């Protein structure tokens, strides 16, 4: 009974979605290139310049210019009061930042990687995420937690975990995962401006990658809406939903699939919580097939949630079971050959897409 009611409600909300054209953002012809690193740096710079309440906090963010140079030049520009090098205590500086946010300033906390955020996770969940609710709106927490997430290259088990699913399961948090430079700029700006606590999951290997950016993206008022996914590549045969680095892999897989006559639609989730269920469902209703891709551990992951959403709302439209591509269910090994086998590769995505199309994968 509930399922039918939900389907009805989804149909109503789908009807409200404007035609797909507006969902697509076309780059202007001026194809300027920008790395993710520069995109994040410029976003931080512009938001700090626009709002004196914004300040940065983290290990090595100041003098060292950022462990990954994301905060380069900001200490010189804004001074040590607004760019704080902290002692080594994730629990400590996260708690301090949340306290500052309670007061009303807007901290942007950097974790050297989100693996280290586990030492601070009580403050992220119990002190930040739940506080607006527990205080019934009296205390808002306009804080952003950002840093590299997921696997890098050869950094082993304690530096490679993806935390998207963990944080996205908690009400009160918003969780974003940019892919391109446009995503990085627009979503970080949106995160800083948002009055709710936001977890912003970057990717170390993407920091140096360049993406084309339009003039609109470069404007200091540019902002992307939180909770909206993006169709990176339009298609009609199978939907591939991914986030962060896996979007790049999905696009490459789509190129390979094209040669085999399969036209894949690639969705860049951008926002893990809130998940853009309506766009994913609309896409699956068009293609009837779905492959979810994530680098993270498979159990209780983002792919599992997307699959549940499809089954609840678009079950009748599926022509094949949902395929879920994820990292191996083991702590990340170090040896390069083992590491390669522990994360999804483009071929895995291609084979999964073919399976949904009942094509042979040999």
């Amino acid at each position, binding site marked *: 009974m*509930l399922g039918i*009611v*939900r389907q009805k*409600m989804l149909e109503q*909300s789908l009807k409200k979605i404007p035609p797909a054209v507006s969902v697509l953002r076309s780059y202007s012809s001026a194809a300027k290139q920008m790395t993710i690193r520069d995109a994040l740096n410029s976003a931080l710079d512009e938001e700090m310049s626009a709002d004196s309440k914004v*300040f940065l906090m983290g*290990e*090595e963010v100041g*003098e*060292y210019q950022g*462990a*990954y140079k994301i905060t380069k030049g900001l200490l010189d520009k804004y001074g040590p*009061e607004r760019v*704080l090098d*902290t*002692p080594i*205590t994730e*629990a*400590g*500086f*996260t*708690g*301090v*930042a*949340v*306290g*500052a*946010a*309670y*007061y*009303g*300033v807007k*901290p942007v906390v950097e974790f*050297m*990687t989100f693996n280290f955020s586990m030492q601070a996770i*009580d*403050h992220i969940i*119990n*002190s930040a995420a739940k*506080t*607006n*609710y*527990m*205080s*019934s*709106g*009296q*205390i*808002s927490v306009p804080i952003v937690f950002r840093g590299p997430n997921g696997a890098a290259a050869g*950094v082993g088990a304690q*530096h490679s975990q993806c935390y998207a699913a963990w944080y996205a399961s908690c*009400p*009160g948090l*918003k969780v974003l995962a940019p892919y391109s430079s446009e995503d990085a700029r627009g979503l970080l700006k949106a995160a800083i401006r*948002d*009055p*709710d606590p936001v977890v912003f999951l970057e990717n170390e290997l993407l920091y140096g990658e360049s993406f084309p950016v339009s003039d609109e993206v470069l404007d200091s008022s540019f902002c992307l809406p939180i*909770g909206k996914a993006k169709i990176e590549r339009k298609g009609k045969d199978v939907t591939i939903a991914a986030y962060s680095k896996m979007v790049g892999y999905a696009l490459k897989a789509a190129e390979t699939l094209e040669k085999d006559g399969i036209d894949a639609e690639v969705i860049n989730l951008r926002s893990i919580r*809130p998940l853009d*269920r309506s766009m994913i469902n609309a896409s699956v209703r068009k293609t009837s097939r779905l492959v979810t891709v994530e680098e993270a551990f498979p159990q209780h992951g983002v792919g599992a949630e997307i699959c549940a959403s499809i089954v609840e709302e678009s079950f009748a439209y599926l022509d094949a079971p949902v395929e879920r591509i994820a990292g191996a269910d083991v702590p990340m090994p170090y040896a390069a050959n083992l590491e390669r086998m522990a994360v999804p590769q483009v071929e895995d995505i291609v084979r999964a897409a073919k399976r949904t199309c009942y094509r042979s994968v040999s």
Partner: protein
Amino acid sequence: MAFNLKNPRNIINNLKSKVGLWSLMKQSHSTCCYSSCLNTIHLHRFLPLTTLPQFTNPESISHKKGHFPHFQRFQSTTTEKQIDSVPNDEHNQVLDFPGGKVVFSPEMRFLSESPSVYSQCYRVLDDAGQLISHSNFVPVSEEVAVKMYSNMVTLQTLDTVFYEAQRQGRISFYVTSIGEEAINIASAAALTSDDIVFPQYREPGVLLWRGFTLQEFANQCFGNKADYGKGRQMPIHYGSNKLNYFTVSSTIATQIPHAVGAAYSLKMDKKDACAVTYFGDGGTSEGDFHAAMNFAAVTESPVIFICRNNGWAISTPTSDQFRSDGIAVRGQAYGVRSIRVDGNDALAMYSAVRSARQMAVNEHRPILIEAVTYRVGHHSTSDDSTKYRPADEIEWWRMARDPVTRFRKWIEINGWWGSEAESQLRSSIRSQLLHAIQIAERAEKPPVNDLFTDVYDNIPSNLREQEKLLKETINRHPKDYPADVPI
């Protein structure tokens, strides 16, 4: 992952203030030597121990270009004499470490794990409520003293009545502050209303002092429609934006770094205010306590840490909690000024907090106050403390060491209070409380849509959907839902 190799330029800038090393560096002629030396320090950490002897002769080092006396650090096994003791300048070398000047000593002496004498405890009134001679304290006017006393009595009565209410099954849970009334009220009286309070959960007296009414306390405990918390939290999790009292959170010690963050922000905003945080002896074992103390010192934040050392963390006595001489001594370890105070002496508490506040705000420094006291009540209504401590010990502290009685004696000696005023106050408060409970109990509960609001700043569409679904389900099956929950 990033290495913690600091920018050499930054180290040089930091050291410019320490003249000694600067002159040492000038002797080595160039800053290039210094940077290459830094690189060598890192390598040095991986050299096998057998190669260490080559650095034993200090003279040989200073002649070599690029070698720094830093290397001596690895082969010296002597601990430095405490700076407090007068160094013999003729014999003892002084060295500039990045942290500052350090005096060497050829005598191996470990710092003791416990002092020969326990750290002093500041008190002004003796157990009979009389001023101790030669005491120095911040004077309190009759008006303030009487207000403090009335609030202490109100807190005591509030606790007694609400505890009874829980035992009668009218509220689900309660936490008393019996025995800690002086800490609660006197500290609150010494602060201003602009000072931001981050409580643990045994400090409702601070809210009371600031003007939270008995009805408001009752509403929160009953989780009714008038509760500022919209019925979302267990009893005693009070909070008030207006009174600058941050909502109580059940997690232990998490409020301590929050206070430091707020204090830092107050400093950035150049406000004439500080942050104040309370916690118990048990809370000082949490990592958050250490991180916060350290941070407060490094960031020079105007924050007052008030530790209610009441001897017990549920059933864990302080002897199982830590082995230091209480909490105040830890301040020095972090570079934080501290004091130990008799927590049952309202005047001493008032003076200490008042002075602490001045130092915090004017000098931008954290202050640690350890208020020694005794938790007379059980940890909460879920606890029966006679199971782990003797009942006569509890009784003794309740009667002979009651902070309320002690302060009463002092104001009576001053002629500011009498037995008639006493009985009037007590009966008035008690009837007000019973009345407040009656009203709170009968009030409506919060509406169903309060389940879904405030998760985020704006209610998201999925929660709106769920709310709609829930209301439809309730309308279709009203028998399955309680009648007193408004939709």
